[in-house]
């Protein structure tokens, strides 16, 4: 009886206060859970998050200029770019010394091509100078200003020096400016001339086509999801296979199928010609343009729209619809005012998913998009593997990533990542 009247803290069996004992047990549970997650988290961080962070770093990194031309960068610091005059002899002497070291290590062409992204023509300037400077005697061969001007009159162009000066810091926003169709002019950032604004056009096109694809997925997916959710489960399961089979089929199989069907000598054109709807010499051009990309990608992404819609529609009680009708609503009113609002979460989930997936698509636009139907991803790939301008590729990637992460955040808020379902 005395126990119940005790006023002190409740004790656990081992004599510690119950509160602390429970807290310790909870902590143990948390640690155990984290220990189970830790290996995978570490794995993902190392193989996936770190590479992406590295890419983001690359989009602002610019150490090559100050590392290869250290003396020139220091000497150029005091030069006034807006004066319109070439720098003085000290700068040329520093450049000669840097260039000689760089040319011996064969690094001068790399600086040249780095600066060439910003001002076309610099690359050849560096390449030619490197060959000659290697033979110069830095101690006695001065003054170097005339010697450089003799090599190429480009070395007397203040714009060249301004470019070197602008890109001498260790970090730069130059790649991002490039990605936004801007350049560093004489007085700060400015837009490029109208006819050189390719990235803005590409971003606009990517967004526009992703929107068209998402909309056509909604239009095609909604009836299918509805019929799947409202048929008796036996026939719904059978029809579900028709949705899941394309979902499980290799992306390249589906892309090649569309290539086969949409070609000018392909199945669709042949059928239309056979039916007489299209003349043999006026076959439709359905591939290597925006139309081809939109059709193929709508087909590829349609299951991602149908599955979330279906799982939401399954939970809508059909009696609501009957109740609305028995209260006098027409077919359309009962659908629009009762059924549709309940299915909106499914549309939202599917749309964000399809939009996220389509905005970063690479393979299908590459194969069926031609030149007019390519996305920003294709440009990124081009810069990585063909033009080798990795910084610009990283900057374009960073912008795309920011858009996707924003949508991912919205998806998490609206649907919750935990609720993603597969099949």
């Amino acid at each position: 009886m005395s126990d119940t009247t005790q006023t002190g803290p409740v004790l656990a069996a081992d004599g510690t206060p119950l509160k602390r004992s429970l807290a310790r047990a909870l902590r143990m549970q948390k640690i155990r859970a984290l220990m189970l997650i830790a290996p995978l988290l570490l794995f993902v961080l190392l193989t996936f998050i770190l590479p992406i962070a590295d890419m983001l770093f690359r989009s602002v990194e610019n150490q090559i200029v100050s590392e290869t031309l250290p003396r020139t960068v220091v000497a150029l610091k005091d030069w006034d770019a807006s004066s319109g005059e070439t720098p003085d002899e000290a700068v040329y002497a520093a450049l000669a010394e840097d260039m000689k070291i760089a040319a011996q290590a064969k690094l001068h062409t790399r600086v040249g091509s780095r600066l060439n992204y910003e001002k076309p023509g610099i690359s050849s300037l560096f390449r030619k100078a490197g060959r000659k400077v290697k033979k110069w005697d830095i101690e006695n061969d001065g003054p170097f200003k005339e010697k450089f001007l003799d090599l190429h009159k480009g070395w007397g162009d203040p714009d060249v020096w301004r470019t070197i000066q602008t890109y001498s810091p260790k970090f730069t926003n130059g790649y991002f400016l490039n990605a936004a169709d801007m350049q560093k002019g004489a007085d700060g950032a400015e837009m490029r001339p109208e006819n050189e604004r390719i990235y803005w056009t590409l971003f606009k096109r990517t967004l526009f086509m992703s929107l068209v694809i998402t909309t056509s997925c909604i239009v095609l997916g909604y009836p299918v999801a509805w019929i799947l959710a409202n048929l008796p489960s036996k026939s719904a399961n059978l029809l579900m296979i028709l949705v899941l089979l394309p979902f499980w089929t290799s992306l390249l199989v589906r892309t090649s199928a569309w290539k086969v069907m949409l070609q000018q000598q392909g199945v669709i054109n042949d059928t239309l010609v056979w039916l007489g709807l299209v003349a043999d010499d006026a076959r439709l051009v359905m591939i290597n343009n925006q139309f081809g990309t939109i059709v193929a990608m709508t087909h590829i992404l349609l299951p991602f729209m149908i599955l979330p819609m279906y799982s939401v529609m399954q939970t809508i009680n059909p009696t609501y619809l009957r109740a609305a009708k028995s209260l006098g609503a027409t077919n359309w009113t009962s659908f629009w005012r009762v059924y549709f609002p309940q299915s909106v979460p499914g549309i939202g989930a599917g749309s964000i998913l399809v939009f996220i997936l389509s905005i970063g698509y690479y393979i299908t636009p590459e194969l069926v998009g031609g030149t007019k139907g390519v996305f920003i991803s294709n440009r990124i790939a081009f810069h990585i593997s063909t033009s080798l301008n990795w910084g610009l590729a990283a900057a374009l990637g960073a912008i795309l990533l920011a858009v996707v992460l924003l949508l991912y955040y919205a998806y998490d808020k609206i649907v919750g990542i935990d609720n993603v379902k597969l099949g």
Partner: protein
Amino acid sequence: MALTPVTPQTPAFTAGTAAAFGAFAGLFVGTAQGSGLMGIVLGAVILAILGAIAPMMAGKDKPVRWAVFFGFIAAGYAFGGIPAAVVGGIFGAFFGWLIFFVASGRYRESLAPYLTPGQVLWHYAFRVICGVIFIFLITPILVVMPLSFNSQDFFTFTPEMLQFKAEGYSLKHYRDFFTNDDWQNALRNSVTIAPVATVLSVGFGTLAAIGLSQPHVPFRRAIMAILISPMIVPLIISAAGMYFFYSRIGLQGTYLGVVLAHAALGIPFVIITVTATLVGFDRSLTRAAANMGANPVTTFFKVQMPLILPGVISGGLFAFITSFDEVVVVLFVGSAGQKTLPWQMFIGLREQISPTILAVATILVVVSIGLLATVEMLRRRSERLRGISPT
């Protein structure tokens, strides 16, 4: 819905409905033969006559349907040989069924009795729309399969194929796939990369999924967001990042690099499927096991593992197909030595377009049908194990 009265329709109604279908079909046949208008009129007239006869022949469905079927085949053959006869057969079978379906009034059988004619029409129109979308979904796959048996190097149906002549078909593209060194190397690479990547993602992923489904996990949302991110981040960005980073640490162009990259891409699928399975897992089972003296390891392998195994396997299959189908990342992270099957297909589609791709595509479709069937079976089994009746 047995309350719905099924009353036979009048000949006029049946004839009218059938005529509308006939006109539609006639439009296509007519344009193919040169005159769309003639086709519409003829199709409407023929079907109207058939539709008018059908209600009078009630009860004698079978012979009439066979007669219509063979009649159309004969007409098709007279017009344009074997291909037209096949088309005629399809039309005949459909129209034979249609006239009796309408004439007997059976079309109202499964509908609520109070529907107006307009609503009945919409009901069937809606099914037709859905049917068209389903055909859109499945056609590309259905077109690829027969084309892969083409005996010519064309990507379309040759006249021989349409006339069902034996010389129009051959297995030469399959032979090419099994004898060509490029394709065989690619197949070998795919088969050696995908399983290792799968084992990695399933091993780490299952452990983490079990951790994530504990009742108290700090930063659960943030961790989940990180673990799912490989599925969300555009592949080209993952590929770019991995390419830059892996070339810094010397993994670019190595087998290990590709395996690690594919394992990272497969992890979200394992996490999603296994956590979904664990939602229905009864925790008192592990407590009961512990109560009877089993240590955590025994509990895991003897109690928990068998119950969540279906989820783990289907997660593994998802991870496998992700790696097996992946092309963007391997294009950048791999080198010529890691050329996988999708990579080879990608090159084939972009540069030297060869019909062998269609043979490979058919084989891959068959593989994915097998995987889909396995996953579906496992899902049902898992639901049965957890006491959720299959829906």
